[in-house]
C-alpha cells in the first residue's frame, strides 16, 4: 500500500523521514516531491510558509522612516513635541506605504488571479509500506506535524475497464 502525506519544509519533515527509515521502511520506498509554487502570483503578505522577499514591507519601511523623521523635526515647533509627532509620523508613513504597496501589486496582478489560501503545503511525501506497518507509519507522520495523511491501496481501487 501507499501512504501519502503533505508537509511544510521544517525540521519535522526530516525527523519523520529518518524515523521511518530507522523503523524499517527502506529509503528507496520513501519518495519526496517538492511542490513548485505558482510563480506568476506575487503574494503581498509574507508569512512563515510563503514569502516574497521584496513586496510586503518595502514601502511601509521607507515611508515610515521618512514620515518619522519629518515628525521628529516638526515636533520641535509643534505643541506635542518630537516624540509623539515622530510616532504619529512612523505609523502614518508605514500605513500609507502599506496601502500604496498593496494597491500597486493589486494593479499589477488583477487579472485572472485565483485566490489561494494563505497556507498551502510545500512538499508531498509518498511511501510504500506493508499493511501491518500502516498504523506505525501514520502515527510517525502525524506526530511530526504532517498537514494531511492519506492512504492508497490496491483493494480499495475501483476497477475501470
Amino acid at each position, binding site marked *: 500500500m*501507499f501512504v501519502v502525506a503533505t508537509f511544510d519544509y521544517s525540521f519535522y519533515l*526530516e525527523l519523520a523521514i529518518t524515523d521511518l527509515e530507522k523503523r524499517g521502511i527502506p529509503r528507496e520506498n520513501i519518495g*519526496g516531491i517538492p511542490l513548485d509554487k505558482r510563480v506568476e502570483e506575487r503574494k503581498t503578505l509574507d508569512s512563515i510558509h510563503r*514569502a516574497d*522577499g521584496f513586496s510586503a514591507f518595502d514601502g511601509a*519601511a521607507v515611508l515610515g522612516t521618512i514620515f518619522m523623521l519629518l515628525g521628529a*523635526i516638526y515636533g520641535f515647533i509643534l505643541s506635542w*513635541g*518630537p*516624540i509623539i509627532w515622530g510616532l504619529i509620523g512612523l505609523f502614518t508613513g508605514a500605513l500609507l506605504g502599506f496601502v500604496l504597496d498593496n494597491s500597486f501589486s493589486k494593479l499589477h496582478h488583477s487579472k485572472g488571479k485565483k485566490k489561494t489560501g494563505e497556507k498551502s503545503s510545500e512538499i508531498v511525501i509518498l511511501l510504500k509500506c506493508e499493511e501491518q506497518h500502516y498504523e506505525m507509519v501514520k502515527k510517525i507522520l502525524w506526530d511530526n506535524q504532517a498537514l494531511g495523511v492519506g492512504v492508497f491501496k490496491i483493494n480499495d481501487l475501483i476497477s475501470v475497464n
Partner: protein
Amino acid sequence: MEKKQPQSIRNQRRPKGLISPFTVNYFHIKNPWVTAWWSAAFPGYGFIILGSYVKGFLLVGWELFINISCKLNTAIVYSLTGRFEQAKEVIDLNFFLFYVAVYIMSIWRTYGLTVDLNKLSILADQEDSSFAPVKLSALEICYLDKKNPWMAAALSALAPGLGHLYTHRIPTFFFLLVKFVIVAYFAHLLPAIHYTAVGAFEHAVALLDPQWLLFFPSLYGFAIYDAYMNTVEYNKLFDMEQSRFIKDNYQSKNLYQSLECEFGRCLS
C-alpha cells in the same frame, strides 16, 4: 586545451550562501532602489543589508563623524522649521563639503552592488550549488531554521537589534544595539519619552538634542525592515536547501516503478 573541472569545484564556483557561526551571508534578489534608499537614509545601511559589513560599518562610522562635526542634523531641523539664519550659523564649514562626495558615492555604489549581487544570485540558482545548513564553532551555533518574520519585526520595534538576534545575524544585531544605545543616550531620548508620557511636552522639547535625535528614525526603520526581510529570506533559503536534499535522496526509481505497477503498467 581547457581542463574540465571536477564536479565538486564546479558546484562551488557560484555559491548561494555561506553559513558562518555568526551569520548567514547569502545572495538573493533585491530591488536595487530599495537598498539605494537605505544608503540615502544613512550611508552604509545599504551595504549592511547586502551583507557587506566592512564597507557598511566604515561608512556608518564616517557618517556619524562627519554629521556630528558639521552639525548637519541641527542645520536640517533649523532649515525645515524656517530658521534659516540659525541654520547657516550652526553649520561648520570646515567639514560641510566633505559630506557630499561620500554620500552620493555610497548611494550610487549600493545600487550597482545590488544589481551585481542579483546576477550572482541567479547564477547560483542556475548552478544549484549546495551548502551545509548547520555550522558549529567553539563559540557559536548557526543553523537555518524557519522563523516568523513578524516576530523579528516586533522585536526590532522594541529595541533595534533584537530582531537580528532572533534571526541570527549577529554583526547587525551588535552594531544596531550599540548604535541605538549611543544615539538614545546623547539625544536624551528616554527621559524625553518619560516627560512626553506624563504630558510635560515643553520639558521634553528642551531636553532633546536634535543633532542626535535625527539619527534615530533611520536607525529604527532600518532595524525593523532588515530584521523582517532577512527572516523571510532565511526561510526561503531553508526551503530551498531542504527541497534539494529531498530531491537528491528520496526520489528512487524503485518507488516510481512500483507506482506504475499499481496502475497496472509494470515495465518488467
